[in-house]
């Protein structure tokens, strides 16, 4: 018989407010294998943990049940407590009374009854718990950063500066990401590219950074500390080693297509660099719009290139990189405003998005920094901003707040007045300006730069003559209003990239209903993910502004450094193992294993005085992720999962059904 100690936590009133903890610990104390049972206000606190340690010694306990919050929250905490008391940490079992009982039920009697069943289950699982020892593995001291916008750049530089090699993979032909498209940044009105470009150059020149642009991660194999990434280098049609970025090719290219970087407001050639500060300064051929690929003729760029770097036959190539940790920083996209047909974005050229305005205001943008209407090139006298286009809209957009639009709109309104003497009106729902210096900035926008803020969501935008009519309610007035304006700027929502789901799946990271990747814990593990060794930085995890992105990127880098600086790491011992004496060699476990951790092996044994060799299986402890599919498939009961053994789960089922 085991000597099990049960500790029921009140979690203040979180549990004790709904569950009768006194009755619970009393009832559980009656179980024959429970040697000690008590309840305590905050078990995770230091005195709480000391109490457990004391009780272990005093009552000679050899299995511990903590009935508190979710094991996803505090299992690591209490394992350490057990270790501190000299018990094997895996002799702990938790019962989830908070998230899965007291927080979801109101009826005290029923909740208490359920909590008894839940703790009884934990006790019976503990009865079959055995001590486990983690194995160790070596760590590859390199990291990979996926995405090279400001998040990826920051993470890569932090990692590289710590002395580790970093592989940076960027999908676009240049690093820089969204921030490179912005004209100014709030609330300081710094020139965006001026503060970003030096970092872009650092990334390309850092001795510890290996940069792949125009490349994507196709596959990520291995496990924490020892990943292998397969990187697809997309054909650039230009030899990166040879090209010196002289620019003759893009100057002489006869084709002209809308420039995506300038939001289609200006043109670029078919062989191009996205913007003057691009890193690397190596062009790429847009094959869909290149005369050579369309007709087989032209080839002017190839003829003129002094380095013979243009290669029309270039194909995608693949490289493999060994790394110990991954930082995912794949960024965001913007909501497509044609999903609001009432705003007529696709009908009128002078209805644009905030990002269009960034390009229009930018000195190296399509209008050389002059603010002009796309339709007739006239300078607008009045601009109207519409907030929350696609944000906070469960019908046509996203339920969440995009977090950055209030401030970038204030920035736009300020800058239009300050530098161009253009008046603006802003239709808003709430102004969210809660970070350092933001409220002050917003106040200057209204007070000093006299932007008219009108509270109400715009219902419709349409044209009348060469004016645009904006129709909405000024809810402060309680009245329908119309506004004649020269240009309308839509503050479109931040949303996940269209391929975010695929990227998350490649990296083994989970994602939410909006396809933002999810962190391991919203408060306490904000840069880690459920995939060990994979960290998140920037807007791929949710809408963020630049300061927050940079902070998170440094956080992710620190976590990655923490991991890859170690010589070896402990493997979770909750993995499968095979009792070869019972293994029948049917090999059903091999095809079901998603991690290819089970391999066939020959075992030699003595049978009635004879040495015989037969087939069995072996589990690679590093590869096994502990899913237990093999043990569910095992017919002879030889394959078992440590920490979730057949005996334990059967005992749990029995206890919970009582």
């Amino acid at each position, binding site marked *: 018989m085991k000597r099990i100690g049960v500790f029921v936590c009140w979690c203040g009133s979180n549990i004790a407010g709904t569950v009768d903890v006194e009755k619970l610990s009393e009832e559980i104390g009656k179980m024959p294998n429970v040697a000690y049972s008590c309840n305590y206000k905050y078990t995770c606190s230091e005195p709480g943990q000391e109490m457990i340690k004391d009780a272990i010694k005093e009552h000679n306990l050899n299995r511990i049940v903590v009935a508190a919050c979710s094991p996803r929250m505090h299992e690591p905490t209490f394992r350490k407590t057990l270790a501190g008391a000299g018990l094997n940490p895996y002799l702990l079992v938790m019962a989830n009374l908070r998230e899965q009982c007291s927080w979801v039920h109101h009826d005290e009697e029923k909740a208490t009854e359920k909590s008894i069943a839940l703790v009884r289950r934990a006790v019976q699982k503990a009865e079959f718990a055995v001590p486990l020892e983690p194995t160790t593995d070596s760590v590859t001291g390199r990291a990979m950063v996926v995405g090279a916008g400001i998040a990826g750049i920051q993470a890569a530089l932090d990692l590289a500066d710590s002395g580790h090699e970093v592989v940076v993979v960027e999908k676009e032909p240049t690093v820089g990401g969204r921030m490179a498209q912005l004209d100014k940044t709030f609330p300081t009105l710094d020139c965006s590219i001026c503060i970003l470009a030096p970092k872009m150059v650092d990334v390309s020149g850092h001795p510890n950074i290996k940069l792949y642009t125009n490349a994507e991660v196709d596959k990520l194999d291995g496990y924490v500390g020892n990943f292998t990434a397969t990187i697809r280098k997309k054909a650039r049609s230009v030899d990166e080693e040879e090209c010196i970025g002289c620019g003759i090719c893009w100057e002489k290219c006869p084709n002209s297509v809308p420039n995506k970087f300038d939001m289609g407001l200006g043109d670029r050639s078919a062989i191009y660099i996205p913007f003057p500060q691009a890193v690397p300064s190596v062009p790429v051929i847009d094959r869909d719009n290149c005369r050579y690929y369309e007709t087989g003729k032209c080839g002017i760029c190839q003829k003129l290139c002094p380095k013979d770097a243009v290669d029309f036959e270039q194909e995608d190539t693949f490289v493999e990189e060994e790394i110990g940790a991954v930082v995912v920083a794949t960024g965001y996209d913007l909501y497509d405003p044609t999903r609001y047909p*009432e705003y007529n974005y696709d009908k009128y050229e002078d209805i644009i998005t905030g990002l269009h305005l960034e390009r229009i205001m930018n000195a190296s943008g399509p209008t050389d920094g002059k603010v002009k209407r796309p339709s007739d090139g006239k300078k607008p006298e009045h601009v109207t901003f519409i907030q*929350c286009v696609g944000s*906070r*809209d*469960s*019908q*046509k*957009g996203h339920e969440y707040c995009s977090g950055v639009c209030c401030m970038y709109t204030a920035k736009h309104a300020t800058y239009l007045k300050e530098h161009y003497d253009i008046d603006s009106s802003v239709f808003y*729902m709430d102004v969210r300006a809660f970070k350092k210096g933001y409220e002050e900035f917003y106040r200057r926008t209204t007070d000093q730069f006299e932007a008219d803020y009108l*509270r*109400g*969501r*715009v*219902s*419709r935008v349409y044209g009348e003559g060469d004016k645009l009519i904006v*129709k*909405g*309610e*000024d*809810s402060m007035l*309680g*009245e*329908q*209003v119309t506004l004649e304006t020269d240009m309308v700027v839509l503050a479109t929502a931040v949303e996940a990239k269209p391929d975010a789901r695929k990227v998350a799946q490649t990296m083994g990271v989970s994602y939410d209903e909006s396809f933002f990747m999810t962190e391991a814990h919203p408060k306490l593990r904000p840069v880690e993910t459920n995939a060990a060794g994979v960290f998140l930085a920037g807007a791929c995890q949710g809408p963020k502004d630049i300061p927050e992105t940079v902070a998170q990127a440094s956080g992710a880098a620190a976590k990655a450094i923490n991991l890859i600086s170690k010589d070896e790491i402990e493997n979770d011992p909750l993995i499968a193992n095979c009792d070869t004496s019972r293994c029948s060699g049917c090999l059903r476990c091999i095809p079901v294993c998603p991690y290819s951790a089970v391999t066939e092996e020959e075992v030699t044994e003595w049978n009635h005085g004879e040495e015989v060799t037969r087939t069995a299986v072996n589990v690679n402890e590093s590869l096994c992720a502990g899913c237990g599919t093999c043990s569910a498939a095992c017919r002879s009961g030889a394959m078992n999962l440590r920490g979730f053994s057949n005996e334990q789960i059967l005992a749990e089922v029995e206890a919970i059904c009582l």
Partner: protein
Amino acid sequence: MTNLSAVKRKNQGFKEKIEAESGQSVTSCYQCGKCTGGCPLSFAMDYAPRQIVRMVQLNMKDRALNNSTIWLCATCSTCTARCPREVDLAAVMDTLRIEARHQGIKPKEKDVALFHDIFLNSVKKSGRVFEMGMTVAYNMKSGNLMQDAELGLPMFVKNKLNLTPDKIKGAKEVKKIFDKVKEIEKVEGGH
């Protein structure tokens, strides 16, 4: 000044009733005003449609049922089509009108209500609407005897006026439908 606590005590359950009968979550409304911004009739209303929702949210029953807005709503559903919180405001307006009738509140736009009554009476009588008869009855009862009189002659000349009602064979069945609905709604409406 409105004492919201007192209003809530007095009209406890009003919001829930409107929500249940309209099938709409009035609670979801975050008062953005997109409904009012697009409402073609809002210029003629005494309260903005958004404010009517607010009154329901706050259980301000008396004001929510006694205003011109609910009667001037033409059920064009522009609000519904654009609401970012997926509230079918047109359905809420219907429910408020029906509730106002149940409560016996004199409609603030009495002619609108009168027209609805006369229209339905016409249907109840013959199974279909008899436009001529309906118009005459409406003019008599509303007191606007000469309303649209100038349209009468051209309509007659252009053969746009039927002088006799188009009575259907199943008129009795239709009348029965009206009677049964009235019976059921009397019970459910608690009157």
